[in-house]
């Protein structure tokens, strides 16, 4: 029974079914809540959600801004800048640690400590160090994902068999070429994997920081609208977040499949 394969059609049908069950459970929950209190806004009905979606997409009466556009722009810029800094830094540090024992001895202990530090708990520290503007969100995300990312890259580099590196040098590779043409290429799919895993935490850190400090952005809007009990706005925002994360993840998986055909179909 264990690991007995099921037909592909089944697994598709079961996937669709599970989503449908989820939607049905929500509908039931909402109906039940509205049966108890017809005015409820905390578990909105589908028509209430439609109103909320309209509110998100249309220019607001107060300042003419479309909420989703304004919040999405702010959050995306913060997220991508943070991811960019964290990923670039993590890869460079990981490569250096994996290649040079001096840097390894220097950086592995602090990074393993920092990897266990939740950056959301260090909000005040980021305040002191980089202020409260975009830099703070960027620093928070970068700092949050960098230790784990660099450690993964570092372990990946160490996993590259010594024989491959020796062979590359017998083939006339320079130090830079070994790092760039051999090690970086060998661990590239692993880097994509760890970037995929970093997106979740990065969004957690960003949303948490926005909830506290933001005056625009997803975290700000979700906290504010939760307090005002406008769950018909909050849930679509959450759905957009989930869809965004899923899309980014799928795009990276496609990139990995396209760039590293040798990896996806199994390692030797």
């Amino acid at each position, binding site marked *: 029974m264990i690991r007995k394969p099921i037909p592909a059609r089944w697994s598709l049908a079961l996937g669709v079914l599970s989503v449908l069950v989820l939607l049905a459970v929500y509908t039931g929950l909402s109906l039940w809540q509205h049966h108890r209190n017809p005015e409820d806004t905390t578990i909105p009905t589908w028509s209430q959600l439609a109103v909320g979606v309209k509110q998100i997409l249309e220019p607001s009466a107060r300042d003419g801004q479309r909420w989703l556009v304004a919040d999405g722009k702010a959050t995306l810029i913060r997220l991508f800048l943070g991811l960019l800094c964290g990923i670039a830094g993590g890869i460079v540090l990981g490569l250096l640690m994996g290649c040079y024992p001096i840097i390894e001895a220097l950086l592995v202990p602090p990074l393993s400590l920092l990897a266990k530090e939740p950056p959301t708990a260090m909000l005040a520290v980021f305040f002191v160090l980089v202020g409260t503007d975009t830099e703070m969100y960027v620093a928070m995300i970068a700092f949050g994902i960098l230790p784990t990312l660099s450690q993964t890259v570092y372990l990946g580099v160490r996993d590259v068999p010594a*024989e491959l590196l*020796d062979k590359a040098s*017998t083939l*006339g590779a320079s130090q*830079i*070429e070994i790092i*760039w043409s051999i090690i970086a290429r*060998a661990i590239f799919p692993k880097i994509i994997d760890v970037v995929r895993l970093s997106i979740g935490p990065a969004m957690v850190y960003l949303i948490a920081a926005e909830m506290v400090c933001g005056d625009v952005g997803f975290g700000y809007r979700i906290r504010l609208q939760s307090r005002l009990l406008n769950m018909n706005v909050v849930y679509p925002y959450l759905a957009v977040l989930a869809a965004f994360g899923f899309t980014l993840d799928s795009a990276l998986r496609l990139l990995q499949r396209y760039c590293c*055909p040798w990896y996806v179909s199994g390692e*030797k």
Partner: protein
Amino acid sequence: MPSVSSLSSDPSAAPASAPELDIVLECRDIHHGFGNKSVLYDINLRIVRGEIVGLVGPSGCGKSTLLRAIVGTHPPREGAVLVRAAGQTSPYAVEGPGPDRGIVYQRYALFPFLTALENVALGPLLHQTSIPFRLLRFPSWRRLRKRHLEEAAALLAKLKLGDAMHQYPHQMSGGMCQRVAIAQALIMKPEILLLDEPFGALDEATREELQRTLLTLYQENCAAKAAGLPPPAGTIIIVTHELSEALYVGDRVVGLSPYWDWKAEGFASCPGAAIVYDKVAPVYRPDQEKDYDSFVRQREEIRRVVFDSTYFPPRTENLTFWHDVRNGRGEGVLK
């Protein structure tokens, strides 16, 4: 330190007898070890251009260490590795790895992210170009790359891999991978090619097929030598724990062993493995039926001298290679 200069097998003892033999590689007074552990003791070895040398010894005796010392990734503690390029009169000491010495490992032979063709073309890429060249002079690089790929394709076709050129290593069998690995080393036209237990992980049939491939290369060397040309397949040292393989593929067998009479040389404990066996071996053509009986005696001899942990022969007793060659007992390129 006991002197080795008086050994009867040393070619220097008979300078006039082998002037026609072209020495490609010399290991001179190599001692090696890690920490307090001595691994290799006083290794002196001269390899004739075009040879296939089978290097045998008990497992863990230091065969791979010697190979790595020659490759240059783990330079010896003492002594030197000298290489003489074809047509040159004086040898040079090696410092670190270089394209003049190729290597094929038992595993991890190939770069997993490159196809067979790209794996073979990687050597010219790394050797002939640099990252700035590839980035800044893109058109020239493309033209050069095309030539590399053609060269690699031709070599793969020669090794009967024409159909698998665009496969990744994980898609190929172990035997195919080792062929690609050999092609990868050969494309650099190394002075010497080192094979570290290359067929150890393969099944019997594949192993024999690859052994015949080596013999084919050896025949090309013999033909080139007869025509007064440098050997196209270079010189090969193959490390193996299979005595039959060493005798079948090699024209010479070198045995490395820690079981030699070091007490006679004044040591209280073993100072490392030494070369205790060095003799010519029969030469087979690839189409020739493998006749085990013909090398049964030599195999038993090696087993006793090199592998028997209870028998400690004098170090120099079985180093008769140069003596044999001088007396015309060498075959193939040693003739």
